[in-house]
């Protein structure tokens, strides 16, 4: 019997729920932590990014229009999908981050637990971040948290899965749609999570994942006027320059955390407050 031929995989971008090569046709090689070949990955272009923003914009309203309970169910299902592929994720995290398998498995487990945690948050955001305000008149006055809209995420460069989960799921849980730049050197765990999103009922376009050159993509994402906020956690030295680009269209900017930062800062980051007045009585 002859040896079976390898089924090799090129990791695709996740745009609008589809797994696509870059429109530019480019791809690049990703190595593991030892420098050995690990995978071929699509290299997104600025046009791919633009398509992803269009997809996110279209997906955001229906995602926010779904009930908070339903959004929680969908995100929980993402955790179910990830749980079933824990081994594969751990293998990728171990290779990407150069950590022992047991350590990688623990990191993946924490990441999946975080997904469940965010699933639980969807119907609690309004209670925790919203409120009923006392006013001097015969009115109820409510502060309601509503999503910013389309959020660009520059995911952490080093934490390929756990960090990505936090950066992406927090805005999604609060009703935003996300265009995420995965770690450039360690993109495969993020792209795998993107694959899982397609089988979790997450509407196409809510989670878009792009891999590629950050110097090329991040400025375009931050300057894009139809993006309402950016998380710059993985931007490294470029944080200042990118924040300046984001200021051009008055985006919300979440800078990398300082030590002792609140666990809720990512949840709170891409929320706007809508104030509603309602008369008391008949």
């Amino acid at each position: 019997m002859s040896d079976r031929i390898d089924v090799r995989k090129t990791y695709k971008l996740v745009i609008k729920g589809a797994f696509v090569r870059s429109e530019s046709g480019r791809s690049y090689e990703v190595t593991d932590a030892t420098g050995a070949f690990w995978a071929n990955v699509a290299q997104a272009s600025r046009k791919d990014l633009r398509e992803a923003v269009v997809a996110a914009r279209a997906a955001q309203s229906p995602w926010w229009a779904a009930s908070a309970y339903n959004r929680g169910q969908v995100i929980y299902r993402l955790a179910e999908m990830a749980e079933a592929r824990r081994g594969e994720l751990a293998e990728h995290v171990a290779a990407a981050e150069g950590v022992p398998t047991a350590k990688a498995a623990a990191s993946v487990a924490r990441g999946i637990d975080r997904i469940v945690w965010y699933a639980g948050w969807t119907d609690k955001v309004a209670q925790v971040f919203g409120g009923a305000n006392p006013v001097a008149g015969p009115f109820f006055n409510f502060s309601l948290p509503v999503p910013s809209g389309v959020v660009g995420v520059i995911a952490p460069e080093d934490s390929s899965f756990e960090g990505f989960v936090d950066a992406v799921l927090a805005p999604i849980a609060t009703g935003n749609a996300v265009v995420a730049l995965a770690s450039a050197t360690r993109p495969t765990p993020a792209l795998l999570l993107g694959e899982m999103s397609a089988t979790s009922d997450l509407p196409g376009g809510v989670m878009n994942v792009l891999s590629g050159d950050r110097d090329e993509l991040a400025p375009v994402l931050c300057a894009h006027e139809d993006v309402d906020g950016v998380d710059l956690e993985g931007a490294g030295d470029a944080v200042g320059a990118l924040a300046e680009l984001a200021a051009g269209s008055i985006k919300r900017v979440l800078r990398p955390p300082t030590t002792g930062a609140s666990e809720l800062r990512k949840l709170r980051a891409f929320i706007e407050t809508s104030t509603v007045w309602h008369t008391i009585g008949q």
Partner: protein
Amino acid sequence: MVQVTTTPLRSGASAVRFATRGSGPRIESEVELRSVLASLSGVDAVGADARAAKLATRSIKRSSKMAALDLAISMVDLTTLEGADTPGRVASLCAKAARPDPSDHGVPSVAAVCVYPDLVATAKRALGDAPVAVAAVATAFPSGRASLAVKLADVAEACLAGADEIDMVIDRGAFLAGRLGQVFDEIVAVKAACGPAYLKVILETGELVTYDNVRRASWLAMLAGADFIKTSTGKVPVAATPPVALVMLEAARDFAESTGTAVGVKLAGGIRSAKDAIRYLVLVNETAGSAWLSPERFRFGASSLLNDLLMQRLKQQRGAYVRPDEFSGD
């Protein structure tokens, strides 16, 4: 069967900014019409698809892109053809047509607004002396299923209200059934009813089935005196496609070569992105030649396209992608 024997000569002033056309060739009878159309070679469908697809890959560099975007804006027939059209909606459309980007005086006006005949007067009033023509779809648009008398009355009413251009539909049923003389006669009669107004003949290529039919219908319309041949009403699922545009542009080019009369081409339906529009401009330049790269010879019938053109124009200037809601909805 053919009662009208000649294409009427174009005379007098024409709409807004169009040069007077010379006389077309004379078709004396249906037999002659058939023999002219039969003499046209068939379209190599695979070749047309391949050529159109190949030209779509041409890359346009930044400096040319800006010029192409402005040119495309100046070629737009800004269209609203809904049952729910109101005078207010038409008025806001006209404001947008005259000054597509109110924040930038450098943006050219569009070529025309395209409305139903009953809204022509509203559009004329709203446009005032802006350099934008008013086009009316007439002749029982979009199906064309009415008697000739009704169609002519439709045209006359639109012209009376001040339409500068008439977009007529051909009787596709008659064309497909082989009653070519009837189609020809109708175009000639409508042309006569148009008076000085410019006549665009809608072939509804999505219903003509083959590229050969598109080529024949294009020639038939041009022989009958069309000033423009137009792909579609926008009311059937298949509208303008690159290969169909290629076939029609070839027909316009060949007609100009053999008769000396230049006929314009208008694409309508389904063109929504600036990228597509620029691809069509490449197709025009490479097929009919640069003489067709002007609003007198080439148009886009569209509504949402204009916003994308404006967005891409602003993107070129600002260097960042722009919010779609920067511009008013049509």
